[in-house]
């Protein structure tokens, strides 16, 4: 951990002791893997001290405790990830015996409508990986496989049959650099960009109702 470097969350220091390979009680161990989907190119995932980094073509997502940011090095900025990708809602550290609360927290923080309602998580298989049927409020069910040693989802299958899996799982310490937001990066608020665009002809307000 480099002192003074900004981590996920403005000004917050998230990773106090990144680099330990051992699994601490109640915590996911550190590892990296590839997220592989039926129709998507593989992308890298890193987990360290309950924080998650997911790489994307134009930057990377950082999540912890449900909150998620999207960092764009090319633009030297970061934003709240919100619903930019569902990956930040699904691939979060969980309690293998009671994962619903972590998924719900991620969905609520992403601003998914209705996600603060009642979630249903039903265990349908215990070993070697726990398998759950997860039903968020107002949404169709999906099945999730959790590796109890990683304390992390390793496969998500949607109701339409499409799936995402973690492959090439490599336990080990992760570089703290992966989880940082470099100094000088600025937070972007899309609302400000919208207000700017409203000054142009690009934005068309709907007709006022009379």
């Amino acid at each position, binding site marked *: 951990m480099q002192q003074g470097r900004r981590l996920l969350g403005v000004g917050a220091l998230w990773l106090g002791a990144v680099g330990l390979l051992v699994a601490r009680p109640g915590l996911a161990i550190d590892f990296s893997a590839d997220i592989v*989907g039926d*129709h*998507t*190119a593989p992308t890298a995932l890193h987990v360290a001290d309950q924080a998650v980094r997911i790489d*994307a*073509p*134009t*930057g990377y997502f950082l999540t912890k405790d449900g909150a998620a940011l*999207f960092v*764009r*090095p*090319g*633009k*030297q*900025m970061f*934003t*709240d*990830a*919100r*619903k*930019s*990708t569902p990956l930040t809602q699904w691939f979060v550290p969980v309690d293998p015996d009671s994962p619903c609360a972590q998924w719900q927290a991620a969905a609520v923080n*992403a*601003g998914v*409508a209705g996600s603060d309602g009642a979630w249903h998580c039903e265990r349908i298989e215990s070993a070697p990986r726990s398998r759950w049927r997860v039903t968020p409020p107002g949404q169709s069910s999906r099945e999730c496989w959790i590796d109890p040693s990683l304390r992390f989802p390793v496969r998500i299958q949607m109701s339409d049959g499409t799936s995402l899996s973690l492959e090439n799982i490599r336990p080990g310490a992760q570089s703290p650099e992966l989880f940082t937001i470099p100094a000088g990066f*600025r*937070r*972007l*608020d*899309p*609302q*400000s*960009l*919208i*207000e*700017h*665009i409203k*000054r*142009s*002809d*690009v*934005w*068309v*307000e*709907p*007709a*006022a*109702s*009379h």
Partner: protein
Amino acid sequence: MRKKLGLSAVACAVSLMAATAGMAKDEVKDPDVADAIKTESPIKHVIILIGENRGTDHTFGVYRAKGKHQTITNILSKGIVNADGTPGPNFKLAQQFSVKPQPLYYIGAPRNAKTAYGDRGQMPQPNTNGAPSAQSVSGAPFPPGFPEAANQVDPSPDFGPNTNTILTTGATNLPAKSLDTRVPDAGMLPNGPFVLQGLNISDDDYTGDMTHRFYQAWQQSDCSVANATKANPTGCLNDLFPFVMATFALNDSVTPAVQGNFSQGNEMGFYDAEQEQASTLKTLADRFALSDNFHQSFQGGTGANHFMLGTGDAGFWSDGKGNPVTPPANQIANPNPAKGSTNKYVADNNFSNCSDFSQPGVAAIVGYIESLPYRAEPNCAERHYYMLDNTNPGFFPNGFQAPNPATQSMLPASSVRTIGDALNDRKISWAYFGGGYNDAVALSDEAVAAGTAMTQNSSTAMGAAALADPSHELGVAYCQICNPFQYASSIMGDSAQRKAHMKDTVDLLADIKSNTLPAVSFGKPDGLLDGHPQSSKIDLFEAYVQQVLDTLEANPKLKAETAVFVTWDEAGGYWDSGFIQPIDFFGDGPRIPLLVLSAYTTGGKVSHDYADQVSILKFIERNWKLRPLTDRSRDNLPNPKMRDDQPYVPKNMPALSDLWDMFDFDHAVKQPYLE
């Protein structure tokens, strides 16, 4: 979005493997398929780059033609201003008037009702309106260094190296909606045009916008055959520009500061090209060909002019299957003055049935069109309510069709034939390249998933999607109303058509590099770079143009057979001194610049042949041997026969050039664009 890219990449690789499997080693196919299509001229590709809201006198008002024996008509040649931008000996030719209250909407104000503004500060003065006051991390102008590394990671070329610096400059440092004291003598400006140049203002500064809508623009032009002269047989005086801006939204009996429109006198601002303002455009004019008689096709704004560029016609409210129906009442315009006001429009809405003279505002324009000394027709079909002002297309950028266009304030799917349809019929390649399009598709997908696309206007729904998905926030800067094909059922309602022809700026540059440029390409920057006053700057559009030209410069073979048309959608409300040839109910409007860049248009020529945006359609149709789009589209008009004694007034009005006169196809000259 990434999922689709991944799939298409795989599919592309598979199809490439299949395509090359049976090919002999020496059979390397030229990817430039447009090269093989027979054309009337040596031009095999056209690229039409469209900026936002700049007029001819506003941009080239102080410009001296560089070509041998070439002349240009502008406020400098007329003596309205001097080369340094100060008032010239004929400054009064540009004086502006106010008008006493009238009972109904008018476009030719009665002479006895008009009063010229006084000389010092009497004319409405320039106003910052909504121009950005300071730098912002979330919207242009950005703080220094903000986008400096953008090109390394971000695939969008819209934030390329040319734009990095100028996206950080130009804040007004003044309050919004205040007197623009950056303009020298602001507050005491005389009655006429003023130069946007001084210690605190240049072409690198954001300036206040002004309203640019249909009924306002006709009224500003002040057209009446009672004003006609030999040089100006249509009698458009262009002398009510600040007045209309200062009054159309102002109810005199209510608090003016709240009710008023803050455009004020911004219409009269211009740049001095002879003093290095808009210098990229000037360099291109010096080296290539410029038209000083090119016009916006439609009085008013962005959507209708782009629609005309794509169709040669106006859009109308329909049942989505081509049958005209009456739009909701809140869409129908009534520009008549409200009771107790000087000129405040009763209902400043977007649609009129101009075949019905009893509709508010219609009789004034149709009466004028029918009084012209040549055979001009309103061209208003019965029961058709035409789109006069900006209305989003009935399709989202991803092709989702708005299910409730009336309540979503979106034009129902259009059946008006486009140039894209005509090119498709002949299997000639084409594409529309819109800045931010890929992000806009992603936002649209999310609006559909969220259900907001079912009920909300596309701007609103995509804005909400951007808040939820900031990684695609640039999608809100993609201009939907600038894409005439986004209105069309034939394109947007067909996923194969959409995929083939609806593209992003990144694709334009890639196609130029890979020799896969379509025969016909339309290029539109996003809302940050389009040059629109207030939200963009003229030098940002210059940077966009330069990026395309630099890419083309690196491909000499492609450049040699490509004509680049650089133009604007409309003058944006900026005053212009040029002649206007009204053609029908919808326009023409004021002059806008047109630059034509090719090996056959070099030497600084200035064309005077009368033309408008439909002339670009006529060029395409002539070059690729296409027929006019429909029996009512403007591309049916003949080429103008120009007069020796009045070089800007066709003898055979109404007429539109096909721009062939700007080319010398017998002489190809290698001319660098900007190096």
